[in-house]
């Protein structure tokens, strides 16, 4: 038996292919939305992989440092190092901010870390590690910064000495690594005018400026100009250490919160990006419905244009199954063209998205199956219309 669907497609291939391309662009957008979601998750996982940490120690009763603000004294790491099973500890600060550079502005996550400790960038793709105590930086390539470029952050200028890749915040902002002390200053130290004002206010406060207590005012003012806070202490554990047990000890004795990698995964994926994921899921649902409606409309229109041929086919003895199969195959053909175009389009435009778009082969397979299912369902309306065509319509009068 002749494949009627294939013959019809070949007969009007231009119209069919252009329709498929149009549908494909819509499918491309749908696949990109799925890719954006995957990118969000992958950014989160990349964020956790950066510091080489096994445990994240943060302020108690917070989901810090990525999902909620967290503040921990920067000397806490000493006592944490004393806990059995802890091999290394590193203070880290995170601050998302806008910085200017030669070609414009970029939003970055400023990461303060201690070289040689957990929290430092795992690898460089160009340049060298930070070797000085101040005013050097390592930038993720996505920031657009280049080696040896000088950038201004608050009061000081920094030289970009190294470049790294795929080190971004959960929001997709590229990271800029600077020495911990510099980052603490950026995050916690106020500007000069504010400090002078703060000192004057302290001096005017009789509680801090008591005649009978020499040195109190100086001590208070000193505490206002120094910062000894960090957002998280990253711990690397000994190979045989039980992370759950160590985390439990920290919670019990250090009055801090400790999260394992699994906990952080949960916080990032289920809490931090949950709203974005739901938003994207809604887009996916809407786009799927729109795609199904468009396919249904196209196939229905194509079928209505063939009412006379369908009536003739039925009159000369074609089975309903033959006609239904023709329409179904055309709908699936449209889906196949659409999917190929969509997948290609998504791969082509993914790199120009400002956020990371991760197109997984598994998603592509699921997408293909979904497209075929949608096309099959969308063809039902047209098939019903075709089966209602009266063969008598082929006979005039």
């Amino acid at each position, binding site marked *: *038996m*002749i494949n*009627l669907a294939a*013959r*019809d497609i*070949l*007969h*009007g291939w231009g119209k069919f292919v252009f329709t498929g391309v149009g549908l494909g662009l819509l499918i491309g957008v749908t696949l990109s939305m799925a890719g954006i979601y995957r990118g969000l998750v992958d950014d989160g996982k990349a964020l956790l992989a950066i510091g080489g940490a096994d445990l994240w120690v943060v302020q108690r009763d917070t989901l810090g440092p990525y999902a909620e603000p967290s503040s921990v004294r920067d000397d806490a790491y000493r006592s944490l190092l004393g806990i059995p099973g802890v091999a290394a500890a590193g203070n880290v600060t995170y601050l998302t901010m806008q910085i200017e550079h030669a070609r414009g502005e970029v939003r970055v996550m400023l990461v303060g870390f201690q070289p040689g400790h957990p929290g430092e960038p795992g690898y460089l793709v160009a340049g060298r590690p930070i070797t000085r105590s101040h005013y050097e930086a390592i930038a993720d390539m996505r920031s657009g910064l280049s080696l040896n470029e000088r950038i201004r952050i608050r009061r000081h200028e920094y030289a970009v000495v190294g470049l790294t890749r795929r080190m971004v915040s959960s929001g997709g902002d590229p990271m800029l690594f600077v020495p911990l002390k510099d980052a603490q200053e950026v995050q916690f130290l106020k500007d000069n005018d504010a400090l002078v004002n703060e000192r004057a206010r302290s001096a005017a406060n009789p509680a801090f400026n008591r005649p009978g207590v020499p040195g109190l005012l100086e001590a208070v003012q000193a505490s206002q100009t120094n910062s000894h806070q960090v957002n998280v202490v990253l711990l690397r554990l000994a190979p045989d250490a039980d992370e759950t047990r160590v985390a439990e000890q920290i919670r019990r004795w250090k009055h801090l919160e400790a999260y394992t990698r699994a906990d952080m995964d949960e916080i990032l994926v289920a809490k931090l990006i949950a709203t974005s994921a739901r938003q994207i899921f809604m887009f996916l649902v809407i786009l799927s419905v729109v795609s199904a409606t468009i396919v249904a409309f196209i196939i229905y229109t194509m079928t209505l244009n063939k009412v*006379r*041929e369908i009536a*003739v*086919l*039925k*009159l*000369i*003895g*074609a*089975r309903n199954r*033959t006609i239904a199969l023709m329409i179904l195959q055309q709908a699936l053909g449209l889906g196949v063209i659409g999917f190929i175009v969509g997948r290609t389009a998504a791969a082509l435009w993914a790199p120009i998205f400002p956020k990371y778009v991760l197109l997984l082969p598994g998603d592509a397979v699921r997408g293909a199956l979904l497209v075929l299912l949608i096309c099959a369902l969308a063809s039902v309306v047209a098939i019903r219309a075709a089966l209602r065509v*009266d*063969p*008598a319509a*082929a*006979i*005039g*009068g």
Partner: protein
Amino acid sequence: MAQPAIEINGLAKRYGEGDAAVDALKGVDMMIQPGEVVGLIGPSGSGKSTLLKCLGAVIEPTSGRMALAGKAIYDNGWKVTDLRALRRDRIGFVFQAPYLIPFLNVTDNVALLPMLAGLPNSQAREQARQMLAALDVGHRTQAQVRQLSGGEQQRVSIARALVNEPPIVLADEPTAPLDSERALTVIRILNQMAQRFQTAIIVVTHDEKIIPTFKRLYHIRDGRTFEAAGEGRAA
């Protein structure tokens, strides 16, 4: 005498019910022998199309009897369970316009019927090519429908109607879109094919040019048929 190809007795068809009922056919009688081509003429609304649809097994009569080649297909109810197969195997259709499938080439338009009947593609195509050759369009077997002239398209549609060698062919105003010369050519071809395959052909027509070519004519008026001898001029 051979068994009639078509025999109809008291065929009636009523549309609607009650006050809105319309009797389109009020007791049609008709008998056509194999190899005969008869004309069916009548004014608009006389019941020609209804009769054709009843004969083509696409609408069910209200009462009466119809037999094809001596076998009853309707006797106050369908006597065959698979009307689709009946149409495919035993009835050929030629329409006012050729109504060829535009996305199939000439051969496949004709071969589609034997294929639907279950013949392998190669055999069906060979059968179609032979029929096309018999209708003098054997040189256009690979052409697309849009590449054919009106007359060629009508020949291909006749080939499609005859390819399964059905005992009857129903032709619904097959010469309507053609000029005199082509119309007469079509009638000549139908006569030749009727003789060659011993097919009974009913031609519904308004066409004054071809009416004199029929040896027998059925007039239909107000749902009843009246037989008349035709002139039987050579087409």
